[in-house]
């Protein structure tokens, strides 16, 4: 399926160093439009670094040097003058749910309010729409003005997804979004991801190979900063091309 679809993100020979430590080494990888690409690999294999290079959050790290390029819809992200615009186009959901200490509504409107004032009706619509998409609406529709910090961990994470959706991203990156969640919350988050695929391109970094198998259309395996292989998820988990991938997905290490 991959070759037939249009590429949303093209990563070309990307290398990242933090000082002298190499975090990513010559990674070349395409992510097709409206697919979920899972990225798996043991700790320190460069998964999060890859995400940070895509939305240029890596520029906030002092000693990071980036070589190679990342294209978003054919355009080099390094050439995008307005990095804020890039980050609105590529949303990010972090490992730990990080609700800002404000109301549920204000959390969702945080992003949109950075660029424009919203009328009440427009903001109400946006809040509902994003909460529905993140499978949280039914649980919080009666207390939109109560503190987001009071929600459970799973609800907070879905709120973070809604907050990311509110800025209207084309791509959404999840960095181990379920690492702190119970199985039921995890299922809800995964459900939301599968729905989101219809209108977004998703990148899912996960430590949980089973999760990658459940949600990913394709799966990429990173090891020590190198891309070992990327293929259809089924293939990666049943007949991987590389011995190291096989060892990892069958739980021999990592």
């Amino acid at each position, binding site marked *: 399926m991959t070759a037939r679809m249009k590429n949303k993100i093209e990563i070309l020979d990307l290398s990242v160093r933090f000082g002298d430590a190499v975090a990513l080494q010559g990674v070349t990888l395409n992510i097709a439009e409206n697919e979920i690409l899972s990225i798996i690999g043991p700790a320190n294999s460069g998964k999060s670094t890859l995400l940070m290079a895509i939305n240029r959050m890596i520029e906030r790290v002092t000693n990071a040097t980036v070589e190679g390029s990342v294209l978003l819809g054919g355009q080099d992200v390094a050439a995008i003058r307005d990095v804020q615009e890039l980050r*609105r186009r590529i949303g990010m959901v972090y490992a730990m749910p990080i609700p800002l200490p404000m109301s549920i509504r204000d959390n969702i409107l945080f992003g949109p309010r950075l660029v424009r004032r919203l009328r009440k009706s427009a903001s109400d619509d946006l809040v509902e729409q994003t909460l529905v998409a993140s499978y949280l609406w039914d649980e919080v529709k009666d207390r939109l003005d*109560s*503190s987001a910090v009071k929600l459970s961990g799973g609800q907070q994470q879905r709120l973070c997804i809604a907050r990311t959706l509110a800025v209207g991203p084309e791509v959404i990156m999840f960095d181990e979004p379920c690492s702190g969640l119970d199985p039921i919350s995890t299922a809800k988050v995964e459900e939301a991801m599968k729905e989101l695929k219809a209108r977004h391109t998703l990148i899912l970094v996960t430590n949980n190979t089973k999760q990658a198998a459940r949600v990913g259309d394709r799966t990429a395996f990173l090891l020590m900063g190198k891309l070992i292989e990327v293929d259809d998820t089924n293939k990666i988990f049943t007949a991987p091309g590389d011995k190291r991938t096989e060892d990892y997905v069958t739980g021999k290490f990592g």
Partner: protein
Amino acid sequence: MRIPPSITQKIAKISLTLACASAVAALVFVIGFVLVGGLKHVTWAFLTEPILDMGRAGGILPAIVGTILMVFVAIGIAAPLGIASAIYLAEYTQEGKVTQTIRFGINCLAGVPSIIFGLFGFILFVVMLGFGWSIISGGLSLAAMVLPTIIRTAEEAMRAVPRNYRDVAASLGATRWQVVTRAVLPYALPGVLTGVILGIGRSIEETAVVIFTAGSAVQMPRSLFDSARTMSVHFYILAREGISNDNAYATAAVLICTILVINITAYTMMHRLMRGRRAA
């Protein structure tokens, strides 16, 4: 021989309680001493009349006005400047030789005796810039004195805000300035305000700087370029020169009440603000 943990626990609890109790007792004693000695001489006339006969008679209205104006000038300059510097240090630079040097300098300044700031203000504002002994010279010197405190507290308060908040805000498309104003400052505000309140307190209680730079005129100031005395200076002169013990105590009582009122108002405001935010 080892002392059993249950005993060390008891000893620790008793000594910590005692330490805390003596700290509170000292505070209560000092405040009580001044209020008991002073409040009985505080009348409406004392608060609203000019200083007569060098303070033997009349009230302290000029000193009250002098105090308010000088603190306003000092904090009006030191708070924005200090908070801006703190934002720069905490959010706009990378940690390195330069910031370490700046921070070292600030820490040194915070430890400089106030009399030095008085001398500095006298030379720079009173003499070189020709402001003379005036509220403006006094206010500027006080500002220089409280600036390090405000910068340090504000910077620490901002650093205490979780790094995550900054990442989230940036990932949602916030510029650095928006990160500061929307994801850092709101949550650092209590700490930042604490620094400002400390600054207000120090400006009100300061005598050395004020005597050097604002003089000690007893007349009601008519502009910021007039000399004036603050309540602290008034108290100092009354007590030091044995002019009137009763009026000295009364002035001290008013001074303490002022500081209490400022603190209580500031903390209530802050509490409301934070509660409102959490509920929101």
